Structure formats: C-alpha cells, structure tokens
C-alpha cells in the first residue's frame, strides 16, 4: 500500500504572487486617497501611480458559479485581480480611471451592488446560522439578505454621518462581534434538558464550569446521572448548550432577537466601545424578519437625521444622550436596559449632568 501523504505545513500563503501589480510595485509607498464616487476609491502612490478600487457587495455564501462570474468580470474589466474585505465585499483594482465606469456598470448589471465605502452602510458581518452552525438560534445569511435588501440604498450611497458597521449573531456568544448596530439572538427561557442523554453525551464537570452564573449542578434524575439548572439564577445565555447538546436552549418561540447599538472597533476620535442593548423581545421571524428590520431602519433613520459628519452611532448617542435616543427612535426604556451586577456602577449616571 502506498505511503499516506503527509501535509505540507505551508501556513499562510504569501500574498505577493496574487497581488495586483500596481499594489505590489507601490507596497508601503502610498501617499493619499479619495473617493471619486460611492463604491470607488482612488489611491495615489509616492511614485505618482494611481489605482482605482471598485467595491461591490456579495452574498458571502458564494456558489462556484457566482465566484466564476466574479472572475470573468475581473478578467474582462479589472486586470485579473481581486481581493476581499473583512465584511465579505469584493474589491476590483484598475489602473486607469477610464476602466471604472464600465466595471461599475458590468457589476451592477450582474446584480452586485457597488458601494460600501466611506459614510455608507457596509455589508453586515455575520455568522453561519442554520446553514452550518451546530448551535444556532436563528439563520445568519437570511437575516442579512433581508436587511441588506432593505438597506440597499444606504450601501450604494454615502449619506450617513459616518460609516455604519452592522453585525448579526445567531447565539449569545456574539461571533458576529461588536457593531454600530448588532442584531443578536437573546434567549428568554432556561435550557430544556433531555435527562436520558446527558450522562452519555456530556462531560458534566466541564458543563458545570461553563455556566457564567454557577446555576448548573450535577443531579440524579430518574435514577440517571444528569445535570439540573437553578432556573432562578439562570440568565438563559446558552453557554451550556455547545458542550452539552441535550441542554437545548433554542426555542422556536422563546429565542428572541435583541438589538444593540454603539459598538465601535476603532480608536479613532473616541476609544473603542461595546454595543449597548436597546431593544429585545423581537420575534425570530423567518424568512424575512420584518420586525427586526423595522427597528434597524428606525435607528438608522434617526442617526442619519441627527448625526453630525464623522460621528459614529455611539458617538452620536454620546452627544445627544440616551433619553433623546429613546425618544427619537420611539423605543421603550425598561428595567432590562439597566445593568445590575457588581461592576455596573460604572454605567450609572453619577453626576448632576442631565438632559431634558
């Protein structure tokens, strides 16, 4: 029998063989950039070389036919090179301005929206959902498709105060990350335990250790070793579900969506911030999630109206204050918005500074 093939542990591939020649030639020698129109960037190097980048949205979950269509467009209109952004947008680089308009036209004709630059709403960074995750409370691609359909104009135009980065997460681990607006699963009931399976499937001490509020303890149920949950302590986070699938957290009715705002990764102007809860109890309603979409559009609209140039969503709210935010978005402010653990005092208003 033939010797089995050993892997070549080559690691991260060198990008230079794949990089557009103008980028390669001016690597580390760029001078300035501007945006001639939404979806298009112009970068100029110290050498005087210029490169135009056309950015287009994709569905992220790409079939090989779509990938080949994008390759055909790149070969015919963009010198055979592409790159992808962290938010699954595709970028085509061309070395002359005359190539921009035909490329934009071809992309739009093929159904790929051109945009996502500057002060626009970029593609939603998202997770796997029902398509491929083993613990999802909702879908990812479907929620994103629904929202991006509704925000298409905001992707293809630069009309927001600053860039808007939206994320979704299909469980409370928040793999989608922090966002100016985040649409995340929020479970509202403790896990439902199949005690017949726990002993056979779960490493019980590991599950007990996984609970952030120490609400899980070992127990004998119907004569079998299992686990029980102190439902008064349980915060319904679902952390026990991945290591112990018989502790089912997903529920077709009680797994809701929550919306968070004001997350920011950059250290630009203000330090990075986490997003904050603004709405919960939103039905997880496939295939179009209309209730969540409506709230996202309402928040976006209020930000578009009220934000000053360069203010991100969180910076806008920091200026106008939370009372005004809840007023302009017409969202209820409830006891669930107030953090109530030991470290929460830093989120309380310890001052005589108030807004009316």
């Amino acid at each position, binding site marked *: 029998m033939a010797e089995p*093939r050993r*892997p070549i*542990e*080559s*690691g*991260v*591939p*060198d*990008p230079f*063989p*794949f990089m557009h020649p103008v980028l*390669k030639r001016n690597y580390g020698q*760029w001078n*300035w*950039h*501007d945006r001639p129109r939404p979806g298009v960037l112009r970068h100029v190097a110290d050498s005087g070389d210029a*490169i135009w980048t056309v950015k287009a*949205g*994709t*569905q992220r*979950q790409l*079939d*090989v036919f*779509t990938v080949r269509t994008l390759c*055909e467009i790149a070969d015919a209109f963009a010198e*055979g090179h592409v*790159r*992808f952004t*962290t938010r*699954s947008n595709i970028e085509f*680089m061309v070395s002359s301005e005359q190539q921009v308009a035909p490329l934009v036209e071809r992309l739009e004709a093929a159904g790929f929206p051109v945009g996502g630059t500057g002060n626009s709403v970029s593609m939603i960074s998202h997770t796997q*959902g029902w*398509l*491929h995750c*083993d613990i*999802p*409370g909702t879908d990812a691609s*479907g929620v994103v*498709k*629904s929202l*991006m*359909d509704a925000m*298409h104009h905001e992707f293809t135009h630069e009309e927001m105060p600053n860039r808007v980065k939206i994320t979704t997460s299909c469980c409370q681990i928040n*793999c*989608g*990350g922090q966002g100016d607006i985040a649409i995340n699963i929020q479970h509202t009931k403790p896990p439902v335990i199949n005690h017949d399976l726990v002993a056979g499937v779960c490493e019980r001490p590991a599950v007990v*250790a996984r609970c952030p509020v120490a609400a899980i303890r070992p127990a004998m149920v119907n004569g079998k070793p299992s686990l029980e949950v102190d439902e008064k302590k349980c915060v319904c*986070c679902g*952390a026990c579900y991945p290591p112990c699938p018989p502790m089912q957290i997903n529920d077709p009715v009680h*797994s809701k969506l929550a919306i968070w705002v004001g*997350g920011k*990764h*950059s*250290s*630009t102007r203000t330090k*990075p911030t*986490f997003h904050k809860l603004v709405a919960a109890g939103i039905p997880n309603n*496939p*295939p179009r999630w209309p209730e969540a979409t409506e709230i996202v559009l309402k928040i976006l609209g209020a930000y578009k109206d009220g934000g000053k140039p*360069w203010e991100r969503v969180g910076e806008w709210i920091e200026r106008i204050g939370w009372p005004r935010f809840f007023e302009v978005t017409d969202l209820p402010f409830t006891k669930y918005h107030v953090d109530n653990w030991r470290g929460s005092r830093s989120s309380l208003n310890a001052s005589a500074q108030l807004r009316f």
Partner: protein
Amino acid sequence: MAKDMPKTPMLDQLESGPWPSFVSGLKRLAEAEDKPYAPMMKDLLGQLERSYETRKGYWKGGTIGVLGYGAGVIPRFSEIAGEFPASAEFHTLRIMPPAGMHYTTDILRQICDVWEKHGSGLIALHGQSGDIMLQGCKSENVQPCFDELNALGFDLGGAGAGVRTSISCIGAARCEHSCFDEAKALRLLVNAFLDEMHRPSLPYKFKFKFSGCANDCANATQRSDFAVLGTWRDDMQVDQDEVKQYVADRGRKWLIDQVLTFCPTNALSLNDDDTLEVDNRSCVRCMHCINVMTKALKPGNERGVTVLIGGKRTLKIGDLMGTVAVPFLPLETEEDYEKLLGIAQRVVEFFVENALEHERTGEMIERIGLVNFLEGIGVELDPNMVNHPRTNSYVRTDGWDEEAAKWRARKAAPRQAAE
C-alpha cells in the same frame, strides 16, 4: 433519474430584492444535474427549509480530520439525515487565505475546480476569523480535497483550542496610513505557531489580528487575543500648503467642525494664517484628522506597533477588549520583527502554563491581574497601560520604595523599545 428539487416556499422569498441572494446560489448548485454535488445540495436546501419552518438547527459535530492534523475541518452531521440523506455529512474545510485576501482569478478558479470535484460548490468568502470556508464535504472526500488544495499552496486554518486563522487590514498594499508591514507580521507570527494551529493543545483558542493604524480595520482590539496595531512615536507629518488648500476649498468652519472639534485631546489649533498647529505630545494617534485630510496629514516617520492583549467575544464572562501590553515596539528592521515574535512566543507560553481550561487570555488576565501577567511575559509596566491609576485604597504598598527606585532607574536609562 434526477432527484426532485425540494419545495422551499420560505427560502424562495429570499430570492427577491436587490441584494445578491445566497438562496439562488444554493439552488443553482442543486440544479447542476451534471455535477456530483447536485443531490447533496437538494437535501441541504430541504434541511434549511425545515429550519426556517421549525426555527431549529439540525447540525451536530463529530470528529473528522486529515492525516497529521488535529484541527481545521469542522465536522457537521445532520440530525435529520433519514429525511435528507444526501447532505447527511456536510463538513467545512477552513483554508487560510493569502495575507490581505489578495487573489488572482486564476487561483480562485483553481480553488473552485478542486471544490467542485470533492465538495458542494459552496464557499464562504470569508469566515469571521478570516478563513476561506469550503462548506459541504463528505467524510470520504475531506482528505483528497485537502491534498489537492495543499498541493496548490494552501493550508488548513485553525479550530478548537489552538491558534486560529488570522486577518490583517489591506495595509501597506494600498493604504497610506499603514505603519508597518501587516502581511509580513501576520505570516511571521501565524506561521511560527503552525504546530499550535494544526495540533491544538492550548487552554482555548488564541487569535492574532493585525491593523496598520488606530482605525483598526481588522477589528483586532475587540476580536483578538494578540492585537497588533500600527502607530508612530515622533511627530505626525503636516504639509502646511495642503492644509491651506483644504481651508481654501472647504472653509474654516469645515476645518473647525469636522477636524479640530473631534480631536480627542484638543491637540490641534488653527493658526491665523490657516496653517495647523499640532501639540504632538498630547496627540494620541487616533487617526481622525489624518483620515479627514489625507493629502495634508500623515503618521510620523518613527513607526511601529502597539500590542493589545485579551480581546474576545461574550463566552464566558462577557465581551472583553484587548488592553495595552506593549505601548510601542519599533517595527522596521528584521530584528524588530523578531522581537515581536519573541513577545508572541512568551504570551502563548504564559497562556499555556497559566490559563484554566476553556479560558481566553483576557479572562486569564482578569483573574490573575495585569501586573502578574506582565511580569510573566517580561514586559515593563507603563502608564499607557491604564486609563488612570487605581481609585481604591485597599492595597498593600509596603514594597513602594523598591518599585519607585526601579521606575527611576528605568527613566534614567536611554529610551528603549518595549524589551
């Protein structure tokens, strides 16, 4: 005879609207009757439609891998394989992209060809950690699929309790803000930890991310255990003629409202002759003014990186941001890059020795305290690591004189890098 297309009335509603539809893509794969994956994709659509009806997921994990590696393949077995047998096994291969996610159409087509032969034809570009995710591979096809991709020059990415696939911003390839060679740093660090990636044996996952400046386009601060952010130590570069041009074109009110007022430390002032005065000692390198006036302002010339440790998502103690562990490390010479690698090695070693099972670096530091962590990795304390000194008096300070003497000795020595 060809298998029938499943009825998917809910998914069908995601084919309308202006945004590209993943459902149309899935259907196209399912309808490619001349391809081996058509039946698999029909059943995949059937199962996904079921999820839309019941609002439940039907995938479970397992153990699937390639010879010599203990990670990189995400096993997925259907819980309702009886009804959807062709997609009973639907594993993902995580493949590391070229740093910066640059591709020629030629290499993308080669990936598609391999994937069409062995898998479902469905590719996510890219996953949240930065992998090319080839989704939908039968168990028996995982090894031959990997072998062909490996021969093309690609390697599997991370999964489980190991070093994960990394990501960088576009950086030096196309951005004037870039303060170091992001692709070089990414490849140097990640490729030094391939053993920890391919044969995971850490307490939990460990992520590197690289952004060329404080704009942090790679989301490193909040999404990585080891965030490398470009910065500079000397004065920012100002082209006063270009500043005057901006004022002439857009007006003083524009400059005041959109640039000066947003400076977080009031380090900018407009002179009466429309030139810009910069208080560089107060500047925190936030990038705002440079972003707005790309022709007039640039990072300084003495460039390097800041390293933040401990960013992560919610599990288990809530989302954490990375915090400063190395305020400034020059990153220009080969020796500088080796120093960065040395820091990474010490952080990973300390993590292996001190973290609890399933504990991320940020949680470990929260449990043991930043000072103990810094001592462990051999990095000197710096006021840049805190927002402000402690506010609570319940602390033993009987080693004060000794610590104060150390500080004075350090300050008397010539300025050095982080090490």
